[in-house]
């Protein structure tokens, strides 16, 4: 794993190094950079030294978190820019992923269960459509329909500038507060669902979970009324209002992959003998579907879902470009197009770190979810 990561760093450096001409020659052409920045960058990357030294310097710098100034947004460094953009991408896409995973899993489950019916064929075709839909086109159409024609949601951007004109807060400050709230909310809900896992009756369990969900919403209403937060509420609402359309669009596109995969694995599982046994025992249809079949089918779905996180980063480039959402994807596209090499390099390497962590999580969760692997490693 570590070796792979180092290889990745080396490849990403060589890739930028291979850009014809001197990739850093932009420095000389940019009048907004003062001379000291120029010298610092040359010293930092060792640009006057041979390749092996440059490579070594880059890797050391990466771990130090010191990747030099951005050429275009000069006083900011590459790391500062990433620190500003990363939470926005993370927030948007974690919300989308959770939504997409649950809807996708549910739809796939129902599809496999109703195999052969007319509704199954149609829903499958619809999900294939949304799985293969040309994403920028779809996003533009959504933008046109909901933003321009209906006027329900704002067309792109992170916030409405006139509302923030005399705001006492920085937008990042408010946004971090929102992230904190989201994390706390989902953690509490997660704990509740784990605690209610053992309840036998399915309807009772569902009622408890729904009840606690609405309870949490009521509590969070109080939470946003306390202290500084009551002033922030207005601005947080503005940001939340801007997230609606991107979240909706990406969810519609992203759920289909999970749904189709769940359908396939579930169909395989439904052929197994223990499902027949469960039927023969006279268990209710819903219990067989949710407790017996779906849990086994969940395993490959979760794994492949974590593997698609890299794909999600790919998708974020498009989403953020079309909805003008200032996140990592837009940063990397901008910096590559305008040859802001330090930022492009830093972003690319960071995405690699992301993917690495995702793969590691995939391995761990596989062991956690599949008892067969756990038992093997213990004995």
């Amino acid at each position, binding site marked *: 794993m570590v070796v792979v990561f180092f290889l990745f760093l080396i490849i990403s450096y060589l890739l930028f190094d291979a850009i014809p001409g001197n990739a850093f020659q932009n420095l000389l052409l940019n009048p907004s950079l003062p001379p000291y920045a120029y010298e610092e960058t040359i010293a930092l990357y060792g640009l006057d030294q041979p390749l092996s030294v440059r490579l070594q310097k880059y890797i050391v710098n990466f771990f130090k978190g010191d990747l030099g100034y951005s050429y275009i947004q000069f006083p900011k460094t590459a790391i500062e820019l990433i620190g500003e953009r990363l939470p926005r991408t993370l927030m948007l896409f974690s919300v989308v992923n959770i939504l997409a995973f649950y809807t996708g899993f549910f739809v796939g489950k129902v599809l496999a269960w109703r195999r052969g019916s007319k509704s199954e064929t149609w829903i499958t075709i619809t999900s*294939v459509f949304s799985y293969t839909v*040309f994403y*920028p086109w779809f996003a533009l159409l959504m933008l046109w329909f909901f933003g321009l024609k209906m006027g329900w949601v704002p067309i792109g951007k992170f916030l409405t500038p006139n509302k923030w004109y005399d705001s006492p807060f920085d937008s990042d400050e408010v946004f971090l507060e929102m992230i904190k709230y989201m994390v706390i909310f989902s953690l509490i809900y997660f704990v509740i669902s784990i605690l209610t896992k053992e309840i036998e009756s399915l309807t009772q369990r569902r009622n408890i979970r729904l009840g606690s969900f609405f309870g949490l919403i009521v509590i969070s209403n109080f939470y946003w009324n306390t202290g500084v937060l009551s002033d922030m509420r207005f601005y947080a609402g503005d940001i939340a209002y801007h997230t609606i359309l991107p979240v909706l669009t990406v969810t519609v596109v992203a759920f289909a992959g999970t749904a189709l995969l769940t359908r396939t694995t579930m169909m395989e599982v439904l052929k197994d003998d223990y499902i027949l046994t469960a039927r023969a025992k006279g268990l209710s249809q819903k219990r067989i579907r949710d407790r017996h079949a779906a849990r086994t089918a969940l395993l490959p779905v979760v794994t492949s879902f974590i593997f698609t996180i*890299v*794909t999600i980063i790919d998708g974020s480039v498009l989403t953020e470009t079309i909805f003008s959402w200032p996140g990592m994807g837009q940063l990397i596209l901008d910096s*590559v197009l305008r*040859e802001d090499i330090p930022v492009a390099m830093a972003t690319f390497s960071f995405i690699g770190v992301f*993917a690495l962590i995702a793969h590691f999580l995939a391995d761990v969760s596989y062991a956690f979810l599949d008892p067969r692997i756990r038992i093997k490693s213990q004995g």
Partner: protein
Amino acid sequence: MNEINEKSELRKIRIQSIKRNFNLFKQSKIGILGLVIVFIFGFLALLQPFLFMTNIWDEATYHPVVGYDSQKILATVVSCKDIEYPTPEYKTPSDCPAADEVNIVAVAPYNPGIKEGDVIEQFIQPAPPSSKHILGTDSLGRDVFSQLMEGSQVAFVLGLLSAIVGVGISTLLGTIAAYFGGTVDAYLMRQSDLVLMLPTLPLLFIISAFAELKVWHLALVLGIFGGLGGSVITIKSQALQVKVKPFVDSARITGGSRMKILTSHILPNVAPLALLYMVFSVTGAIASESILSFLGLLNIDMSWGLMISVAQADGYINQGMEYWWLVIPAGLAVTLLAGGFYLVGRGLDDVFNPRLRRR
């Protein structure tokens, strides 16, 4: 004599198995649907050169990149003022000027001395669909249907080329990893881990920053990255299952060389899975090409992504359905062709994976 008989027997068995598999494939409705879609686009792609060659289509009018044609109409000059709507003639501000009218502000600079009520000749670009241009023309007076055909040629060439390259690489490496094991296997697995880690789109951005990407370059790049990535792992696991089958052992005992075992015993058994991967990777390749040309990072004359990009840059997408012939066909074509290949893959999956069959 005996050998010839054996060969014809073998051929018969092959034809039979293809027939049987096709019958299985026919059972899945979605597979047939996908095949029909793919054939329609293939027909479109082949039709355009045919039309040009037989001079049914004039290149000057219908060429997807440099052709020009615009619809001429006689329009009455009116003036649209900033007054309160509805007026007796127009309901909303966007109704003025109407279809056969033109605003005086728009034509006055080019026609000195023009006044309200005059009738002048106007060129309409983009022109709506007519019998001459089935899907109308775009903002530069080019035939949209012809562009659509050109785009499907690009999509087919790119999709199939990258899929063949990718599947060739991954099948070869996957079987090698399974057959030889040990260090080779470990190395290949680490390599595909690394490739899986690379974010494709940003990587393509960077490559396009220092190289002029043409379609076949992109096909090669996509093929190589697709071929080195996750599919090696899947094909290796399939080849491992084949490797332990008795017929491989008996081939080894009878003195078959490594190459012989690899090519004539293991590869044919991995081939169905490889075909499946090929079909699925076409979907991804078509989408990647469209995205890159949509963002303007691909050196290409005409493609579906570029059509949408032009429509967006000229602001027709935000006009919505008023200019539907610029907005809908290109995006729908990408979606349908990618979806068609995906559906074919699903149908093949039902054939090759017995656990998915209904009976």
